[in-house]
């Protein structure tokens, strides 16, 4: 029956999504609440005294003025530095699409019902995609509440863009996890390879940002974090090329996952 898996997935997930969203939203609010402290400690002066390589290492480019602005601090301190924390959620949800159920054995019961395999995967994916959207909304809510509490004028449009900039990135990570789940029947393999993918991408992006003009900078192009770019989004708005590119890769990976899962043995 259409939509049964979608509804059931949402029913079982809404609490966790709410907790994750409230947690990340609270973290966002906390970062905004701390913004006045940066003025108090003369953060701009501290940054000016740092050598350029150190500034690069902490993710601050050439635009010092943006870096010490509220938007810049939110982009760096929250969306940038917390990026790895955000990635935990789509990995957990991606594992739930097939890997966990296959490892637990519940997939046998599910797939022995009159529902095609592709629909099970697609409905679960759609449900978790919706929860990622809700997560972004709760983060945006946290930013808005924090800004209201300390009376800092933040551009609401930019805050929304920065929050929704998470969507293609988190979707890509979730779909990558789903793809591995369609490829391998062992949960440990899926978790290990996804972790390597996320951490290696983060490292490539970080090192590539430091070593301008080197091979590392070229390698950075294969890191999805390079296209996440929260500072760029906060300064200039969403880069549609990056957004569409990541969504296109996600769509291709999802299609491959559906194809693979439809054809392979389950539970072996």
């Amino acid at each position, binding site marked *: 029956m259409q939509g049964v898996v979608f509804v059931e997935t949402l029913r079982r997930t809404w609490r966790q999504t709410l907790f994750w969203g409230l947690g990340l939203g609270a973290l966002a609010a906390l970062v905004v609440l701390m913004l006045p402290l940066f003025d108090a400690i003369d953060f701009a002066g501290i940054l000016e005294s740092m050598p350029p390589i150190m500034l690069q290492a902490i993710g601050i480019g050439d635009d010092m003025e943006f870096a010490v602005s509220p938007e810049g601090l939110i982009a760096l301190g929250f969306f940038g530095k917390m990026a790895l924390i955000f990635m935990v959620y789509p990995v957990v949800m991606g594992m739930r699409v097939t890997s966990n159920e296959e490892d637990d054995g519940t997939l*046998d019961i*599910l797939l022995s019902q*009159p529902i*095609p395999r592709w629909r099970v995967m697609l409905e679960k994916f759609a449900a978790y995609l919706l929860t990622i959207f809700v997560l972004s909304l709760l983060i945006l809510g946290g930013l808005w509440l924090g800004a209201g509490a300390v009376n800092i004028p933040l551009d609401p449009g930019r805050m929304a863009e920065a929050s929704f900039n998470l969507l293609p990135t988190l979707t890509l990570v979730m779909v990558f996890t789903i793809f591995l789940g369609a490829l391998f029947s062992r949960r440990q393999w899926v978790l290990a390879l996804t972790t390597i993918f996320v951490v290696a991408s983060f490292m490539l992006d970080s090192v590539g940002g430091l070593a301008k003009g080197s091979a590392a900078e070229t390698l950075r192009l294969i890191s999805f974090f390079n296209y996440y770019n929260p500072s760029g989004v906060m300064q200039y708005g969403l880069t549609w090329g990056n957004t569409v590119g990541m969504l296109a890769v996600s769509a291709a990976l999802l299609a491959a996952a559906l194809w693979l899962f439809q054809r*392979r*043995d*389950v*539970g072996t």
Partner: protein
Amino acid sequence: MANHNTPVIQTESLSKVYKAGKRTIQALSNLTLSVHRGEIFGYLGPNGAGKTTTIRLMLDLIRPTNGSATLLGMDAQKDSVELHRRIGFLPAELSLWKNLTGRQVIDYVARLRGGVDWQYVNELTERLQFDPTLRVRSYSSGNRRKLGLLLALMNKPELLILDEPTNGLDPLMQQIFNDMMREVRAEGRTVFLSSHILSEVQSICDRVGILGSGKLQAVETVATLRHADFRWVTLRLHEVANTQLLAGVPGVADLTADSSTLKLRLRGDFNPLLHALKDQYVVDIKTEEASLEEIFLSYYGNGSNANKTAEPLKERV
């Protein structure tokens, strides 16, 4: 739609090879088997014989290396979704969503199947003495099995595929299960159940397929197998035992004596044995069911001695 004479299950040279690194494991080899409408078919074999592999192939959870399976006149792989609507399935190792209650699991599966007759579900719940209000994680293995049976039965499927269905059920519940299966048969529906316990299969099945090392060794009626059935009997007498006591007693074979203990293989009724012992003081009688392997060795090896090495089992499909 299958007509009345079409076998409900028909496999043709169904084979499955698993690859584990460089090793290949032939889990099922050229299985050709027919199961007819309205029969209870027992699929017997020791652990690792290929019973679960066969069932997983029928349900399209795994794909055959060779051959095909047709269920209810439809291809098990191509028409799997439509078939699943008409099949009730209970896996050997039943895993269910641990955080859901029994009722929530039933509701979820019912919605996936497009609805269910809740009055019938309640009847089954009552009959199986199952409490659906608890979470799956708190159920005993027997109660999980009951829930699995309920899920398999609740849509009154035309074909029930049950993998070791009575695992974990107490004797009373096994009896209820047997009654339910007989009712399913009486309604013209078909049951395919796997087991490694002959007596369990004997009590309800019409025919039995015997699987060993991934190959179908034989298909027999239960009545035929019953002739081959025997048990091991140990008698402890008050006096020193003598094999001459039971020489020539119908059904007695492989008789050995050790001090006051007699060991023998008994086929058929106890009465001739007890009659032969009427002048003896019998301290104790112990009986032990023969293993499936022993019965087949006895049957196919023309066995006067069940322990001897049997010739390769004859294929009687």
